[in-house]
């Protein structure tokens, strides 16, 4: 991910964060050693005085998260009729939000798994909280289809298990595939995340002062002691989990796109959906990583570890996946004409110029017009304020993408006599907003009580890790060590 070419900023040559040989931002600020990175990251967790802003943020997030409590309670009492879903728009916010949240989660897996396989070591700084983001996003996502089934307390009927009713799931339905894909994704993400944290919990156990903290992190670390044999098996397992998560993350959003693509609806029944959904998922996910990383690095003064290089690289990934998404949009328009299908043609006309055409143009503006014109500029890619703004723009755009896909195909389908419209109710909004609060609440708890940046992996990126061959230059070794 190296940017070629000269730097246009004349002051850049003086910037200590820029490597003079490559013109590239350093992944980690120079001057760090094993102890300093450990102190920096462990200090955030082990500090006795919790920042007041954290407490305030947690309180605010908890308040917003009450939307979930209230929204779900009222839903259970009244039924899904309180939502805007009806015929013909039977899939409303529930499915939009489900796809949106789970798409956000995908960037975490991409960073932790795919970039690990490609040996992109810069990912080490951001992979832990991106994985946390994945898990919390999947928590929010999973809520929606479960509630949408109408009687969530019978949700376990979706699972295959022997029962006295002699009923089994019907495996030819994409909705049954979803259950398997999302539950596997949630499980493997949690396992990968936890396995990754075990050595860091060991560090926290050893550095904790309070007996309660020692016991807490001691339990979580499972007695990790950094034995070399353990490390080798651990690395082997991490690599295998990365290798398994890679096809998993691609399959999850593919399966979700099958929920649409398998149905014989104009606008849904297309073969481009799987790759286009996966790219869109990664696009929105990286936007969310930026939304989280930018305030965190500022608030916890982690600019040395989450550097401009990371932001630049993430912006490049967004540029790439955003371009794939733009290709997907273009291909949808092209195929609605080239297929010579009357229904496809009408669907696209209706999507663009029908009563809900405004949603399509918001999507084009926020997913394509704004990001894909500006992200080419390196200056903007390392402009923290702009990226923060852009991350919101893209997430709004990706939400509207799902809105457009779900709603415009459904509300005006084949038979004009059955046309209707879709209007979300206040309960739709309350629950959606509530999941925002829930996500933030969980993320703030994570930031306070777990190591946000993998310490063992950051240590591996430091120059001190270089092993000199024994015997040959023993004196040089000791001098360098000092």
């Amino acid at each position: 991910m190296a940017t070629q070419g000269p730097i246009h900023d004349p002051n850049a040559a003086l910037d200590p964060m820029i490597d003079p040989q490559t013109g590239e931002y350093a992944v980690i600020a120079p001057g760090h050693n094993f102890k300093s990175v450990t102190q920096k990251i462990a200090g955030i967790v082990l500090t006795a005085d919790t920042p007041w802003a954290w407490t305030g943020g947690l309180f605010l997030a908890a308040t917003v998260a009450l939307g979930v409590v209230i929204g779900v309670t009222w839903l259970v009492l009244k039924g899904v009729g309180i939502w805007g879903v009806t015929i013909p728009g039977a899939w409303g916010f529930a499915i939009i939000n489900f796809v949106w949240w789970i798409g956000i989660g995908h960037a975490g897996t991409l960073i932790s798994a795919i970039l690990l396989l490609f040996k992109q070591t810069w990912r080490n700084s951001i992979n832990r909280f991106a994985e946390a983001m994945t898990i919390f996003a999947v928590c929010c996502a999973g809520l929606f289809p479960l509630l949408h089934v109408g009687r969530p307390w019978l949700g376990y009927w979706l699972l295959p298990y022997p029962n006295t009713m002699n009923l089994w799931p019907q495996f030819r339905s994409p909705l049954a595939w979803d259950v398997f894909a999302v539950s596997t994704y949630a499980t493997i993400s949690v396992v990968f995340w936890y396995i990754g944290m075990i050595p860091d919990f060991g560090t926290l156990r050893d550095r904790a002062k309070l007996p309660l903290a020692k016991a807490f992190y001691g339990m979580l670390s499972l007695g990790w002691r950094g034995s070399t044999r353990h490390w080798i098996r651990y690395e082997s397992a991490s690599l295998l989990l990365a290798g398994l998560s890679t096809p998993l993350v691609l399959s999850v959003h593919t399966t979700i796109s099958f929920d649409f693509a398998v149905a014989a609806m104009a606008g849904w029944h297309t073969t481009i959906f799987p790759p286009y959904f996966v790219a869109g998922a990664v696009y929105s996910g990286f936007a969310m990583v930026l939304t989280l990383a930018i305030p965190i690095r500022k608030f916890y003064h982690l600019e040395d570890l989450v550097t401009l290089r990371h932001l630049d690289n993430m912006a490049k990934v967004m540029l790439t996946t955003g371009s794939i998404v733009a290709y997907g949009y273009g291909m949808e328009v092209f195929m609605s004409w080239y297929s010579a299908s009357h229904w496809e043609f009408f669907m696209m006309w209706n999507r663009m110029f029908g009563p809900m055409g405004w949603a399509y143009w918001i999507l084009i503006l926020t997913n394509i017009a704004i990001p894909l014109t500006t992200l080419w500029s390196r200056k903007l890619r390392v402009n923290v304020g702009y990226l923060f703004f852009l991350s919101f723009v893209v997430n709004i755009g990706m939400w509207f993408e799902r809105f457009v896909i779900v709603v415009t195909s459904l509300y005006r389908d084949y038979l004009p006599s059955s046309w209707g419209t879709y209007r979300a109710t206040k309960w739709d909004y309350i629950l959606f907003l509530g999941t925002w609060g829930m996500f933030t609440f969980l993320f703030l708890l994570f930031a306070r009580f777990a190591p946000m940046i993998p310490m063992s992996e950051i240590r591996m990126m430091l120059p001190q890790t270089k092993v000199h061959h024994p015997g040959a230059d023993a004196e040089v070794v000791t001098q360098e060590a000092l």
Partner: protein
Amino acid sequence: MPVHEGVYGLIAEFNTPSELVHATEMAHRAGYRRMECYTPYPVEEAAEALRFHKTGVPLMCLLGGLMGLVTGYGMEVWVNTLGYPLNIAGRPLFSWPAFVIPGYEWTILFAGLSAAFGMLAQNGLPQLYHPLFNAPNFRDGATTDKFFLCLEAHDPKFSATETRVFLEGFSPVSVVEVDH
């Protein structure tokens, strides 16, 4: 578990991975076998010096994945053809392409869980107590910035005095005796 008493081993503390790898290599050449390095991050050179190459984790992962595939796919076929046959729009009961995704997901699920829990099982974790935690300097450094070599007492070559002299020859920060 048998009751252990007495000396567990001697641990030498080093400041750099190079010194650790050198000492480990020399200890291996001197004939020590029951030994282990402890580092704050994976040091592959230390594993080489210990002559530790193969792990059983990939095999466990493979077996788990195959088990998941057979379980998942087999269950789907049984459910949709024998257990609870349903005619969905006249499509064949054995609709093999439709069964691919859940079978695929369970392959990954079982393989991932086998890799993770297999790794923990092979490492003997969780193990909340270990004699090394008794060493006063171990917990200060082993998970932060120090590198330890432990020569264990049940090695036939181990001797509380000679092994200490041997380890001190590498000018470590300290050599500490660890009790069970």
